[in-house]
């Protein structure tokens, strides 16, 4: 039995290659310590340019007015809301990986949680922009916060889902940041302790990382409090991550619009968010592991596990689609029935079928081990997942609105160039932030990776 156990443990190493702790530190910190190469600069300048387009387009739209966009009556919610939900959804994988997989003791999360959390924060930041500009008058956005004010007795309407969003998203962003930063503290100390103060640049780096690492000395007393904190933060983030996209789904589901008002929306949005989040994590990490030579840390096994989560959540999303369809028929409500037939065969049939084929059909390819262990194919499929999930929100927002209860107010929704500029621009913002991240912060949690390593000669430690 012991032999079988040993054999099995050898089959599943989370870190490949015969690595010592020192190798781990060096490998992971390498991108932070070296000057970026040409490839990074090209990618960064492209991303920054697109980010610039984003900001310019937003400035023009805010300055001119929302009339520049494709929204109309009855389609009052357009790309801004679609992008908002899309990015918030992507921003679920990080917390899911770091909190939910932590609570369920999935050790493979240690290699991917850092970059997934970073991705979460950047995605939520991208998402956060949209409701602010969607209101049209950006300069009054602080009215959403409850504070005693000079406008008389005026408070936000706490019975409005949009106000819940303000609280949910800002809480989520704060806690994700705190969780991420707390995890970074020991790793900042690792960077700090490797810096030789040889010149002015290194001196500056030393002081920056000294401040960031908060004077961490890795003491057991500190680790004890630290681990208790991590467990509690994970426990708090678990319901939080469920609540955030549920509250986003309330924006739709509390209404009486056919196709929006359905009780499965909260868990269905959460599952979709996990699905899209893992899709984006795959997109980013497959590139990152190649460029930074992290193949020994983010192994095929990690990719395969992520593919499995993607497959499971994709299938569940498919089940949710079918549930909605079935219930639309079962409800006996002609409006509900029409809304769903219209999604499938109405003027936006193409969006619907893109959604179904990318989200439900493509992930089924992951049933084949040869596909889910092939990084190139995985990457291609992850792109389809990203596309599909954007279209899911497009279908939800547009198809339900463009056919009103009154046929006289029916209309079509056509995106303008400004819509496209801001949609594409938000990717520029996202990638700019992510490219900066991988050069300044350790992209893999060094301390956590060391915990799950099997070190030779060490007994009675780790898991």
């Amino acid at each position, binding site marked *: 039995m012991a032999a079988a156990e040993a054999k099995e443990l050898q089959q599943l190493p989370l870190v490949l290659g015969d690595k010592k702790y020192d190798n781990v530190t060096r490998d992971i910190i390498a991108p932070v310590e070296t000057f970026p190469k040409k490839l990074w600069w090209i990618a960064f300048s492209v991303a920054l340019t697109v980010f610039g387009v984003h900001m310019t387009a937003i400035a023009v739209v805010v300055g001119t007015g929302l009339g520049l966009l494709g929204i109309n009556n009855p389609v009052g919610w357009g790309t801004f809301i679609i992008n908002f939900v899309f990015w918030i959804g992507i921003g679920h994988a990080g917390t899911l990986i770091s909190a939910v997989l932590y609570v369920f003791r999935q050790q493979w999360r240690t290699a991917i949680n850092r970059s997934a959390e970073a991705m979460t924060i950047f995605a939520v930041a991208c998402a956060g922009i949209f409701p602010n500009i969607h209101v049209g008058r950006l300069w009054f956005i602080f009215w959403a916060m409850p504070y005693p004010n000079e406008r008389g007795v005026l408070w936000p309407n706490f019975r409005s889902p949009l106000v819940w969003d303000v609280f949910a998203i800002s809480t989520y962003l704060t806690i994700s940041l705190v969780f991420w930063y707390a995890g970074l503290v020991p790793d900042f100390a690792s960077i700090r302790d490797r810096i030789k103060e040889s010149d002015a640049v290194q001196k500056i780096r030393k002081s920056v990382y000294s401040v960031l690492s908060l004077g961490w000395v890795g003491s057991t007393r500190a680790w004890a409090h630290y681990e208790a904190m991590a467990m509690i933060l994970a426990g708090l983030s678990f319901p939080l991550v469920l609540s955030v996209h549920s509250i986003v789904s309330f924006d739709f589901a509390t209404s009486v619009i056919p196709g929006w008002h359905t009780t499965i929306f909260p868990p269905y949005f959460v599952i979709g968010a996990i699905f899209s989040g893992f899709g984006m994590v795959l997109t980013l990490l497959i590139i990152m592991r190649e460029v930074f030579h992290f193949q020994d840390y983010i192994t095929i096994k990690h990719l395969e596990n992520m593919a499995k989560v993607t497959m499971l959540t994709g299938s569940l999303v498919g089940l949710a689609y079918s549930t909605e369809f079935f219930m639309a028929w079962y409800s006996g409500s002609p409006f509900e029935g029409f809304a769903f037939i219209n999604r499938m065969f109405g003027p936006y049939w193409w969006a619907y079928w893109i959604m179904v084929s990318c989200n439900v059909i493509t992930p089924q390819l992951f*049933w084949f081990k040869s596909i889910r262990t092939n990084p190139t194919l995985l990457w291609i499929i992850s792109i389809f997942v990203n596309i599909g999930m954007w279209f899911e929100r497009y279908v939800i927002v547009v198809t339900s609105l463009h056919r009103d209860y009154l046929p006289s107010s029916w209309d079509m929704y056509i995106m303008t160039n400004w819509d496209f500029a801001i949609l594409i621009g938000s990717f520029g913002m996202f990638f700019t932030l992510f490219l900066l991240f991988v050069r300044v912060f350790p992209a893999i949690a060094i301390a956590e990776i060391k915990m799950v390593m099997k070190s030779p000669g060490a007994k009675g430690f780790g898991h």
Partner: protein
Amino acid sequence: MKFDPATYKITDGGKFGRIMLVTGLIGLALAAVGFAVDREHFFFAYLTAFTFWVTIALGALFFVMLQHLTSSTWSVVIRRIVESLTAPLPWLFLLFIPLLFGLHQLYEWSHADVVAADAVLKAKSGFLNPTFFTIRAVVYFAVWCGLAHFLYHASVAQDSGHREEHRKRMRTLSAPGMIIFVITTTFAGWDWLMSLDPHWYSTIFGVYFFSGGLWAILATIVIVVALLQRRGVLTKEITVEHYHDLGKLLFGFTIFWTYIGFSQYFLQWYANIPEETKWYLNRWVGSWKAVSMVILWGHFVLPFGILIFRGVKRSPRLLMIMAVYCVVMHWVDHYWMAFPTLNKDGVHFSWIEIAATVGIGGIFVWAFWTKFISRAVIPVADPHLNESINFRNM
């Protein structure tokens, strides 16, 4: 009853099984008296008892598949217990048959004349009709019994010496198994409980049906483990760490159940569409309001407030008390889902509910127990067994 710690086998355990079988049969006989007394009340009582026990067995099935899919190691010591808890499923199928004779008492849509006069029911009659209802139930049970059977046998095959293919088989069964399980359970929830009120609909109802079962199975595992340990079974293998973990899961799924229940209630309350809110309005009249409050406070607030404490989760005695309480609450939840359709003015609790629950329960426990003692009580050859025994929480 004797337990051999070397082979992990229980011998001479048949007596308990026989007692349970007799208890079950007596319960069912009493319920049959209830059938003679008040036919409608009997069928609702029987449905409540049936869905209550079925969801526990389904929770067990889900739990087993989840552990295989996530390659959990901590749960290996309790795996055989949970696998055996799926054993009552074929018997529950047998116990489902009486419900087919009560369709007219239970389900409005089974009356052809009512359907003919109601446009909405007429539109759904392709789905809600006795024939299709029966076919679907057969399909559900075929799927569940099949999954339970194959998972159990793949697991006991491992006992005579672990080979990698054993684990592989359990895992490859679990992945598609999970998906068809979700589909069948969702539809079962709609069929058996949601269609009691055929005009009402809620897309999340299947998830609600399932989440309660998952909650109840965790409590059931705690009860079984605690009772076994009192009789000296697995006292060394299952430690306070396992109780702690089960307690954490029970706590977590208290929140999950609340999340699902709240989503359903909240969205229907907020949108305030008459055909949806009436389901909750029915549970808001007379003494039903009190039961609704019991669900809110007893199914969520109390277990949440108690299970949050580490000390409770690490005390087998306290956790067992909580587990019994949770199972009772799970029953109340099913009572609350089924009975307002019959007793529109308020609660009319009777002994028939108890008789039916004990009746099906006796058969359930008997089926579990005979399966459980037929093999080693833990997967003796699982390569993760040692790891599981020595498992420690952080």
